[in-house]
C-alpha cells in the first residue's frame, strides 16, 4: 500500500493548510478571492493520493481499552474523521461516540508540547535528550527495587519493551492500575471458569439477564456487545431476545431492557440464588449440592430481601426455563461490594445451572505471544503502590496512561504519599492532576500519530493483534511515542541489543516481520506482509481455544443478607461509569462533554440521581444543590430526579470534577472518586466501589439543570413520537 517511507511521510504531512483558510470563512458573502490561498501541492505523490479525496488508514482506537479497529479519513495530510475498521472482529466497522472523539484527543489544544521539568511550581521546557539523561541519572542513583512503574492496561510491543526495560533495571515493580476495570469479575471468572474473560455470546442467547453489566454503555467492549445485542434482538429466526436487567441504578443497558428490575443494592447474589431455587422448583434439574445451598432462598424471602416482586421473580424464572440458551452476566454493579466475589459466584452458579456454559459462555482463545498479552489492571495495584510509597519504598516513579491522583479515593492520601517519592516521571498527554505532581513530564504522541500494537483483552473470536499507526504527521515536534521513549531508555541500559533500531517504528517492523509466520504472513515476503498488515490494521493470530472449566462449586458459598440500615449514612452511593467519560481520561474532549448523558440528558456537569420518593422524603426538587457526604468526604452537585434508580440509592457519575487537565475538563462537575470509602472485596482485596454509604443534605442553592430534555421531560404529551408495542404484536421474521 505504501511504497516507501518517504511517500508515507510525505503523504501524512499537513498540506494545503494555509492557516485557517480551509473551511473557516464559510458563510460570508465571499466573492471570488483569487491569489490569496495556496493550492495543495506535493513534491512527490503516489497514485492513490488525489487531492480532495480522502484516503483511509487503519489503526486502533485508544479511547478506551476495548481496542476497536478504526479507519481514519486523511485528506491533505490531516486526519478528519474516524470510522470503524470493518476488518476488526471487535467492532466490525462500527464505533461509539467515545471513539469518534479520538480526533479531539489528537487535536486537543491542551496537549503538552514539550518535556517539562519541575522548577518550583512551574514546568520548565527542556529538550528530550536532557530529559532522558536525567532519568538515567536518577535511576542510577537508586536501588532497583525502589523504582516503580505505574501504568494502565498495556499490551503489544510497548508492553514487551516495558518488560524488557524493567528487566534491564532489575525491578519487577510494575503496577497495572485501572480505575474502573472489571477486576472482581476477572477474579471471579478465574475462579469459576479458569479464565478471566470468557466470551459472552449474546447473539446466541434467547434471554439475557444482566446483573448490572452495562455492556451497551461502558462495560468491557461496548461496541462489540452492541452489535451482538442487535443480533440478539433480531435473531435470524425472528425470535427476539429478551433482556432483563437487574440493578439498583439504571444504566444505558438497563434503559434498553424489556424489564428493568430495581434491586436493593448488594442483594444481586440473593436474587441469583433465589432464581436457582425457583428454577429447581419449576423442574429444572439442579445438582444436589447447589439445591441444598439455595433451598433457603424461597421466593418470598428473596423478594423481601431484594425488593424485586415475587411476581417478577416467578416470571423471570419461567422465562429462563422456557427459553434456552440464556446468558446471565455479572457486571460491576453486582460486584462492587465487600461480598462482590460471592455475588459473582452466585450469578455464575445460575449460569451453570441453566446450562449456559459452553453455549453462550464460551472459552476464549489462547494468545500465542504471552509477552504481548494484555496486562490487565486493578485497583489493588494502586493500593499496594500507595502503601509502598507511604513507607518510602519508592524513589523513582514512572506513571503512564493513568491519572491516579484524580481516580484515587481521598482516603488513600495518594497525593501526600506521592510527595514522598523524590523523582516522579509522568508520561502524559495533558497536564492532568498526576502530571502536576510530577518532577518530569514527558509529552506523548497522540494515539493518531503514534506507532504501537495493541492486543485487546476481549475479542469475539480467536485472538488478534491491532496495529496502531500514525494517521498524520506529529502536530508537535516535541512529543514522542511511548515506544520511542522506552526504546531510548532501553538504549541507555542495553545499547548493544537495541542499537540496531533507529526508532520504535523500525523495532516494531522488524519484530513483526521476523514473526510473520505466526502472524499469518508465512508465504509472503517481508514488504508485502508489512504493507498488508498496515493496510488491514489488524492481524489475526493463530490461536486455539483454551480449556475452560465450568464447574462452580456451591460449597462454601455464603451470600450475606441485605445491608442493615445505617441511620447516619442512609443511602448507598453508586458511582456511575458513563459511556463517554469513563474514569475521566476523556474529559477534555468537548464533544463528549456536550453529548448529553443518555438517561438524564445532562451536559457539562455532574449530577446526583435520586428517586422521586427519596427526593420527596428529603424535600428536594430537581436542580437543588445537595451535599453528598460519605465517611471519607463530601461533594456538592445538582439533583436530578428520575425513576430509574432504587430509592435507597443515589448515584453520581464518574469522570467529572477535574482540577486540571485542560480547558474543557477543568472545573466541570465534581469528582465522585474522592468520597469513596475504603471498603474492599473480601476475596480479591479490590476496592468495593459500590459500598460507600452517604447522607444527602440540601446545600441551599438551586440551579436550572443544563440538559437537552425540555420542560415536558420524557413525556410525549399524547403525541405519537416514540412508540412502543408489545413484542407479540409483530413478527420480526417477516421484516427486512
Amino acid at each position: 500500500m505504501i511504497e516507501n517511507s518517504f511517500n508515507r511521510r510525505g503523504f501524512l504531512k499537513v498540506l494545503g493548510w494555509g492557516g485557517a483558510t480551509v473551511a473557516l470563512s464559510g458563510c460570508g458573502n465571499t466573492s471570488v478571492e483569487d491569489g490569496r490561498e495556496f493550492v495543495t501541492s506535493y513534491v512527490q505523490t503516489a497514485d492513490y493520493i488525489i487531492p480532495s479525496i480522502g484516503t483511509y488508514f487503519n489503526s486502533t482506537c485508544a479511547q478506551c481499552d476495548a481496542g476497536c479497529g478504526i479507519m481514519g479519513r486523511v485528506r491533505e495530510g490531516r486526519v478528519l474523521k474516524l470510522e470503524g475498521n470493518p476488518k476488526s472482529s471487535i467492532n466490525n466497522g462500527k464505533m461509539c461516540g467515545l471513539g469518534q472523539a479520538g480526533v479531539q484527543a489528537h487535536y486537543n489544544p491542551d496537549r503538552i508540547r514539550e518535556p517539562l521539568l519541575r522548577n518550583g511550581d512551574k514546568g520548565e521546557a527542556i529538550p528530550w535528550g536532557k530529559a532522558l539523561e536525567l532519568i538515567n541519572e536518577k535511576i542510577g542513583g537508586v536501588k532497583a527495587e525502589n523504582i516503580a512503574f505505574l501504568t494502565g492496561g498495556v499490551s503489544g510491543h510497548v508492553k514487551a519493551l516495558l518488560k524488557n526495560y524493567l528487566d534491564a533495571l532489575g525491578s519487577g515493580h510494575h503496577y497495572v492500575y485501572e480505575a474502573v476495570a472489571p477486576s472482581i469479575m476477572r477474579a471471579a471468572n478465574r475462579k469459576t471458569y479458569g479464565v478471566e474473560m470468557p466470551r459472552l455470546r449474546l447473539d446466541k442467547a434467547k434471554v439475557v439477564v444482566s446483573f448490572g453489566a452495562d455492556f451497551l454503555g461502558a462495560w468491557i467492549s461496548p461496541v462489540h456487545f452492541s452489535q451482538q445485542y442487535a443480533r440478539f434482538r433480531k435473531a435470524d429466526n425472528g425470535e427476539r431476545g429478551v433482556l432483563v436487567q437487574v440493578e439498583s441504578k439504571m444504566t444505558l443497558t438497563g434503559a434498553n431492557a424489556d424489564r428493568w428490575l430495581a434491586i436493593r443494592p448488594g442483594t444481586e447474589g440473593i436474587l441469583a440464588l433465589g432464581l436457582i431455587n425457583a428454577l429447581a422448583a419449576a423442574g429444572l434439574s439442579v445438582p444436589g449440592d447447589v439445591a441444598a445451598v439455595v433451598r433457603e432462598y424461597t421466593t418470598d424471602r428473596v423478594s423481601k430481601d431484594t425488593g424485586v416482586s415475587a411476581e417478577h421473580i416467578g416470571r423471570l424464572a419461567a422465562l429462563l426455563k422456557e427459553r434456552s440458551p440464556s446468558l446471565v452476566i455479572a457486571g460491576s454493579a453486582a460486584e462492587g461490594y465487600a461480598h462482590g466475589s460471592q455475588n459473582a459466584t452466585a450469578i455464575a452458579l445460575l449460569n451453570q445451572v441453566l446450562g449456559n456454559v459452553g453455549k453462550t459462555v464460551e472459552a476464549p482463545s489462547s494468545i500465542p505471544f504471552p509477552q504481548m498479552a494484555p496486562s490487565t489492571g486493578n485497583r489493588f495495584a494502586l493500593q499496594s503502590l500507595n502503601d509502598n510509597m507511604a513507607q518510602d519504598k519508592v524513589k523513582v516513579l514512572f506513571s503512564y496512561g493513568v491519572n491516579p491522583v484524580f481516580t484515587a479515593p481521598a482516603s488513600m492520601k495518594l497525593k501526600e504519599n506521592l510527595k514522598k517519592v523524590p523523582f516522579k516521571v509522568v508520561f502524559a498527554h495533558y497536564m492532568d492532576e498526576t502530571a502536576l505532581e510530577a518532577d518530569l513530564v514527558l509529552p506523548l504522541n497522540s494515539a493518531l500519530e503514534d506507532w504501537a500494537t495493541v492486543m485487546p483483552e476481549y475479542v469475539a473470536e480467536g485472538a488478534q493483534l491491532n496495529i496502531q499507526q500514525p494517521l498524520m504527521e506529529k502536530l508537535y515536534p516535541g512529543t514522542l511515542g511511548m515506544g520511542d521513549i522506552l526504546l531510548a531508555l532501553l538504549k541507555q541500559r542495553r545499547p548493544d541489543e537495541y542499537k540496531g533500531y533507529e526508532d520504535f517504528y523500525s523495532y516494531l517492523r522488524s519484530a513483526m516481520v521476523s514473526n510473520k509466520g505466526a502472524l499469518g504472513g508465512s508465504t509472503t515476503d517481508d514488504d508485502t506482509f508489512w504493507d498488508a498488515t498496515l493496510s488491514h490494521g489488524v492481524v489475526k493470530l493463530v490461536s486455539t481455544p483454551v480449556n475452560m472449566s465450568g464447574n462452580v462449586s456451591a460449597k462454601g458459598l455464603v451470600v450475606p443478607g441485605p445491608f442493615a440500615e445505617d441511620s447516619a449514612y442512609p443511602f448507598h452511593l453508586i458511582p456511575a461509569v458513563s459511556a463517554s467519560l469513563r474514569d475521566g481520561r476523556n474529559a477534555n474532549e468537548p464533544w463528549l462533554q456536550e453529548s448529553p448523558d443518555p438517561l438524564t440528558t445532562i451536559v457539562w456537569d455532574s449530577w446526583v440521581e435520586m428517586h422521586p420518593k427519596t427526593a420527596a422524603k428529603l424535600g428536594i426538587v430537581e436542580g437543588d444543590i445537595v451535599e453528598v457526604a460519605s465517611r471519607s468526604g463530601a461533594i456538592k452537585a445538582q439533583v436530578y430526579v428520575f425513576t430509574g434508580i432504587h430509592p435507597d440509592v443515589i448515584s453520581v457519575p464518574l469522570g467529572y470534577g477535574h482540577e486540571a487537565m485542560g480547558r474543557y475538563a477543568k472545573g466541570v462537575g465534581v469528582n465522585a472518586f474522592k468520597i469513596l470509602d475504603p471498603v474492599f472485596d473480601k476475596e480479591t482485596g479490590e476496592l468495593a466501589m459500590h459500598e460507600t454509604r452517604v447522607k444527602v443534605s440540601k446545600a441551599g442553592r438551586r440551579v436550572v439543570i443544563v440538559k437537552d430534555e425540555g420542560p415536558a421531560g420524557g413525556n410525549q404529551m399524547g403525541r405519537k413520537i416514540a412508540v412502543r408495542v408489545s413484542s407479540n404484536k409483530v413478527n420480526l421474521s417477516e421484516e427486512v
Partner: protein
Amino acid sequence: MGKDIREDIAWAQINKDVLKSLESPRRMYWVILFIAIAMIGVAVGCEIYQYTTGMGVANKNNSHVWSLYIATFIFWIGMSHSGTLLSAILHLMHADWRKPIYRFAEAMTTFSLMTAGLFVLVHLGRLWMVYYVMPYPNERWVWPNFQSPLVWDMFAIATYLSSSVLFLYVGMIPDLAICRDNIHAGWRKKLYTVMSLGWEGTDRQWRNFRITYLTIACFLIPLAVSVHSIVASDFAMSNMPGWHVTSFPPYFVAGALYSGCAAIITLFIILRYVFKFEEYMTLPIMKKLVRLTFAIAMVWTYLNLIEFASVWYGHDQTAKDQLIFKATGPYAPYFWAMIFFGSILPLMLAFKRFQTHLPILFVVSILLNVGMWLERWMIISPSFAHGHYPWTWDHDQWPSLVQWGIVFGSFGWFTLLFMVFCKVFPSVSMYEVKEMVYHRSLALKHKPAVKGDY
C-alpha cells in the same frame, strides 16, 4: 361636555392657532426629545451588540426562534392602521369629525410603519444580507421565494409605507402652502416652498387635488386591510398550533385598528394639551373616537373569543394544550393581563362619564395599547414555548435585556419622529377644518339651533 368646534371661528384664527404649534419649541420639548434620542441610543447600542455578537444575545433559542422583535413589529404595524382608518375610510364616509385629527393620525401611521420596518431588520440573523429578499435582477440569477409570507410582508409593508407617505404628503399640500405664505424666512420657508409644489389654490388645483386625494384614499383602504392580513398570514400560513387559524387575518386587522385608535386617543390628548388645540380637538370629537374605539374593542374581543372557541371545540389537541398552557403556564400573568387590558378595561369606555374624561382616557388608552402589545407577545412566545414537539418545549426562555432595549428604543424612535413632525408640519389640517366649519355653518343656516349636545 365640552364645546364642539365653533362654527363662527375665523379662518385666519384657524391659521393662527395651528401655525402657532410650529413656533419654536419650549424647553420641555427639548427635554423629551433628548429622552427619545437617549432611548434610541439604547436601542442602537443593543443592536450593535447583537449585530456583532450574534442573535444569541437576544436569548432566543432553536425552538423559540422569534420573540419580542416580531411581537413589537406586529404591534407597530397594527398601530399604523387607524391613521388610514381615520383619514381614508372616514374620508370616504364623509365623517367630518375626523378632519381636525386625521393629520396626526396619518403621521402616526407613517411613523409606526417606519418603526415596524426596523424590527424586520433587527430580527434578521444576517441583516447585511437583507437585499436577498428583494426581487431584482442580480448576478446570482435567483429570485426570492414568492411563496413565503415574509416576502409578501416585504411587498406589503413597502407599498403601504410609500402609499402612506404619499397620502400624508398629498393631503398636506394646501396646508404647506399656508405655511409657506405665513412664514417669511429661514429654512422653513424654503422647505414649504419646495414642498407645496406651487400651490395657489386655483380651482384647477383644487379639482386635481381632490381627485388625487380620493384616488389614494381608495387605494389605501384595501392596502391597509391587506397589510395586516398578510402579517397575519405569517402566522396563519404556518403549521404552529395556535397560529394555524383562518380567523387570524380579521383578528389581526381588528387588533390593529384597536391599538391604533387607542394610540390616537393618547396622542389626541397630548396634542390638545400641549398645543392648546381645545378649539379643534374638541370633546365631541373625542367622544366619537372613544365610541369607535369601544366598538373595535368589542369586535376584537369577539374575534379573540372565536379563536379560543374554535380551538376549544376543535379536534386539535395540540392547539388545545397550548391554549391551556397560555392560560395557566408561566405566561399566564401576561395572558390574563392581555385579556384584562384588551377586553375588560375597554368596557369603561361604554360609560358616558369616561368618554370625555381626558385624564382617565389618557391612562386607559395607554393601557389598552399595553394590552395589545401583550396580545402580540402572547401570540408569539407561548406558542413557541409549547409547540408540536414536546421534547423541545421551552418554558423559561425570557427575552434578554438586548431585546427589551431595542423594543424600548423603538418607542423613542417613534416619539422622535412624531415630535419632529409636529414642529415642522401642521398637525391639524387647516384647510379641512375650514371646510368643516364652513359646511357646518351652512347647515346651521338651514336649521334652527337645537339645545343640547351635538
